[in-house]
């Protein structure tokens, strides 16, 4: 499902170059649930962004959902993201001026669904995350855990192949974090979503099927959960 081959990524800021990934190989089959761990600044988010088509590699091949992302135009990448990926961020990133159901409806505008169908689908997704009673609440009126569940509903609303989560429990307390992990496990086991999750949290990582450790641009297989 996700495949990196000899992927290099170097950031340039000012005159300085920072090589984050040097010839990285990575293989995540469909239906897998991978936790990506590693020290801060090791390149975890970079891998996630490359896999989600938010950024492009300098060299090497990134293939996700049987498409090669390297040479795609920004417009083609946007359309590809709309079809194949769902993002979950550490800081939720809901649109503050929209309520829960509108936030979840948003990505459905990039699908062929009509207005009423979009609404139904959004409500269905919010049902999956257990927020059917919070449709009209704005992000500011929700708790952190609820916000993240709305964000997960938004990520799965378009029924993507891959869910990319960047420290999804980073801003949550233990109990809420457990709820969110429970949800991700269900998405993986019941809906068969392939999940790549960056985390610092060993408890969260333990819920994944396997853990990869990233250090100085090198991947090491960790113990399977």
């Amino acid at each position, binding site marked *: 499902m996700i495949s990196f081959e000899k992927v290099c990524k170097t950031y340039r800021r000012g005159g300085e170059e920072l090589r984050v990934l040097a010839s990285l190989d990575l293989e995540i089959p469909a239906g897998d649930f991978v936790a990506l761990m590693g020290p801060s600044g090791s390149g975890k988010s970079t891998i996630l*962004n490359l896999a*989600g088509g*938010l*950024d492009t590699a300098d060299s090497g091949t990134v293939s996700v959902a049987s498409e090669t992302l390297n040479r795609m135009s*920004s*417009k083609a990448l*946007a*359309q*590809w*993201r*709309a*079809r194949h*990926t769902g*993002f979950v*961020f550490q800081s939720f*990133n809901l*649109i*503050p*001026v*929209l309520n829960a159901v*509108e936030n979840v409806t*948003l*990505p459905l*505008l*990039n*699908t*062929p669904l009509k207005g009423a169908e979009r609404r139904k689908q959004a409500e269905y997704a919010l049902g999956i995350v257990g927020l059917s009673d919070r449709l009209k609440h704005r992000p500011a009126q929700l708790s952190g855990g609820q916000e993240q569940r709305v964000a997960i509903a*938004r990520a799965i609303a378009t029924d993507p192949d891959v869910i990319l989560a960047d420290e999804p429990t980073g801003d949550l307390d233990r109990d809420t974090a457990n709820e969110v992990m429970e949800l991700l496990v269900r998405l993986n086991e019941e809906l068969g979503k392939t999940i790549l999750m960056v985390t610092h949290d060993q408890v969260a990582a333990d819920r994944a099927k396997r853990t990869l450790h990233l250090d100085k641009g090198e991947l090491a297989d960790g113990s399977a959960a």
Partner: protein
Amino acid sequence: MSGTPWFLVRKHLRVHWVRTTLTVTIVSVALLLFCILTTFVTSLTAAVDQAASNRIVVQSAVSLFVELPLDYHGKIANVPGVESVCKLQWFGGYYQDEKNSFAQFAIDDEVFLQQYENDLEIIDAPPGDGSLLDRVRTAMRADRRAAIVGEGLADKHGWKIGDPVPLTGKIFPKSDGSAWDFTVVGIYIPKRMNVDDQTMYFRFDYLEETLTQEQDQPIGCGTFFVHVAPGHAIDEVIANIDALFVNGPQKTLTSTEAAFSAGFVSMFGNLPLFFGTIGGAIVFAVLFSVVNTMLLAARQRIREAGVMKALGFTNRTVATLMLVESVSICVIGGLVGTGLAWVLSEGIRGVVSVMFPTFAVAPQTMLISLGMSLTIGLLAGLAPTVMLARLKPVEALRSEG
């Protein structure tokens, strides 16, 4: 397949209602001022634009305030190509109080009503048979003191058909200090902008006969309005009239009605330039204020733009939403300001009617105003739009905004 979430524009306008209200207010006030200032200029020049093409005006070459001898009337009438000649003399009186000054002209009633058939429309006349115009024509002939008045003037003083209107003459005071007596026999509305609804026209022979009794010196007339017959070159008729009086006793200056009105307008100095500069400066200042507001709005939306892009919205869609928001705010402001100008112009006309009797916001002015609001919206939205379009999703998501 990619839909555009237009509702996001509505949400932003509503949630940031303070910003929306302030910006709409600023734009609407600017365009209100623009419309009003422009209308001062257009109502001055409207008379020029709408002048009858076959009408020429004969005046003294010295000045508008020097009278021409009355026997010029017959001489002008004999010039080839002259269809009709109407005397037109400024009276300069007031009604009851000197504050109630308005334009009054002594005219040859029959010729005048015929020459101005397309310029004004009679809307009230004494009872009788025939059309309103016919009844006014008859009534004017029947009564030496007959006068027709514009609807606005009649409304202002509550004059009806048959009402007496005594005017005190400032240029032509009666020796015993009494007022001139007039009777309203017709009320008109302007059909073209060279006529306003604040004027009174009365019989020249009433003026002539009364003055002849009062004074020994021969009386004259300020202007002769001449209609040129179809098929005759206006320039030639003008040249022939002026040639007639080249050796006096009074040299004449003959011009088209348009040129005559333009000469009148220039007495106001360069008002158009002055008002144009002020109007332009206001709109310019507002443009910068709106640009600043929209840039601020865009900066607060960087993260949202990143999220939208992550969700698969294209750069174009994200940028379009920003531009539409800017344009919406400004066009709403344009509609409010232009609408206000339209509503308020009636009241303003009441106040400035002596100098600007035809004060009315022209449809063209309203269109330009709305066009400017659209332009302000586009210009103000441009930089924020480009900024959000160029933003890389990763960088947008990394930002604090």
